[in-house]
């Protein structure tokens, strides 16, 4: 259902958004409000522009005031957003497969083609289990050793633009969204955690 527009309506939306982010929206209004929020461009845009920023600031104020810790503030914000938009980051196991697939067409429209592209079968030996074992802990970088160094925003944007042309059918839009949302906040880990070749 299209949302109404106009200053009066937007003001009401802002009030509800603010109340919802502060957990002050009456429970009976929450479900309807969230449904309207994520099903309209205006609501979604306001959530991204105003809501999260405002909420971050409020959480930041609480942190500074010593009411909650950084971690608590982050968890609270993440929880509210996940609950609203559908739970990324929450433990939602993929169900077990029921039958076999056969073939999948490749890729969708994306990015850039620059120079030579040719396809052929290449005999490269596959890695065997254990040949390149990495600990799961490498997925999460230790804050003390993080530096925004090697992968500058510009360089990573350039890489993503080139990579986007070859993204798979199911991830091409994700690659594009990383590029245009202007936040390729890749953070590189320096040699501290790197084992020798």
């Amino acid at each position, binding site marked *: 259902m299209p949302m109404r527009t106009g200053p009066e309506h937007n003001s009401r939306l802002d009030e509800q958004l603010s109340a919802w982010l502060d957990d002050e929206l009456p429970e009976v209004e929450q479900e309807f409000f969230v449904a309207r929020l994520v*099903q309209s461009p205006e609501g*979604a845009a306001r959530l*991204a*522009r105003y809501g999260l920023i405002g909420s971050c600031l409020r959480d930041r104020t609480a942190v500074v005031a010593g009411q909650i810790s950084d971690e608590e503030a982050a968890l609270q*914000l*993440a929880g509210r957003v*996940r609950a609203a938009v559908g*739970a*990324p980051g929450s*433990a939602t196991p993929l169900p*077990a*497969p029921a*039958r*076999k*697939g056969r*073939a*999948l*067409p*490749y*890729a*969708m*429209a994306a*990015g*850039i*083609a*620059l120079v*030579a*592209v*040719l*396809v052929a079968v*290449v005999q*490269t030996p*596959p*890695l065997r289990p254990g*040949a*390149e074992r*990495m600990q799961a802990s*490498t997925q999460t*970088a230790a804050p003390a050793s993080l530096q925004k160094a*090697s992968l*500058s925003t510009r360089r990573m944007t350039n890489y*993503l*633009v080139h*990579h986007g042309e*070859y993204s*798979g*059918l*199911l991830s091409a839009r*994700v*690659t594009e969204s990383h*590029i*245009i949302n*202007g*936040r390729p906040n890749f953070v*590189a*880990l*320096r040699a501290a*955690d*790197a084992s020798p*070749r």
Partner: protein
Amino acid sequence: MRIRQRIRAMVLIATAVVAGPALGTDDARGWLERMGQALETLNYEGTLIQSQGADVAVMRIVHRVENGMPTERITAMDDVGREIIRQEEEVIFILPDEQAVMVGARGEKAVGMSPIRQQLGGSRFDDRYYKLTIATAGKLVGRTARLVTVQPTDTWRFGYRVWLDQETGIPLKIQIADRDGVVVEQLLFSEISLPERIPASAVQSSAKLDSYTWQRPPAATGPVAAPLANQGNWRALALPPGFSLKAVRSEKADKGTDVLEQLVYSDGVASVSVFIESGVAAAERGEGPSRMGAANAYTTDLSIHMITAVGEVPLDTVKAIARSIRPARTPGP
């Protein structure tokens, strides 16, 4: 309308019809094929919400097909307003925050298709690495949906859950999940419409680009007759199961000395790009992982070269590939 465009339009329409529900199949693979066709052949516009953890972004997408020719505009609905404009022969990335425009030539046969799809037609889906299931999924943004689950059989790749519009095959929501089944990133339409016609002005940027710095690609050299394995100056000594080299691309920087080489590896669903860059200052090089949502990257260096593997795959996968890259003349294991 040019004859070539007429033919292309007829082929696309015929393909879409064949791939559509007339087949009456509940096969998950068939639905994913239909999704690929729908994304290229239908008019649609809507609002996409991307979320990764607590980070939420909103985009406006307009996809227009006229005479069988798809064009597209994707705009970030934030204060920066980056855009992607996909046209017949080029893709334009407009980056207002950098006052820059990056342009990519697509070539005559590239419209609506990535180079890999052009070359492979339809890639081989290997059920040794992915299992597919399909189920009904109720309604999403007011439309009846089917849920296709793509489950990896090992930890070298991510899984996907895709909610497809039952009427058209357009993906209404996509989730990417890690090895533990945790959703690391998702995209969903908050609203979508499928107008019969979309004006050309809807897929044109409203930004004033005269003062922007334009970065255009060097002229394409076209396909090379030599086998892919013999192209380029680099290769992977070992790869995760199912991955193989799909494309090689190289580019010289403006000054003609620095080189950026790209190797693309894929298992048919996920892909990893490896960038080998020379002329990078030692202070900028280093080794370590990076991450943004479902996209992982791993950077390492070899002599004066910086090597970065990027892809929507687990960190272990980009790390293994990046660390296995060697000069092409290096003997195999």
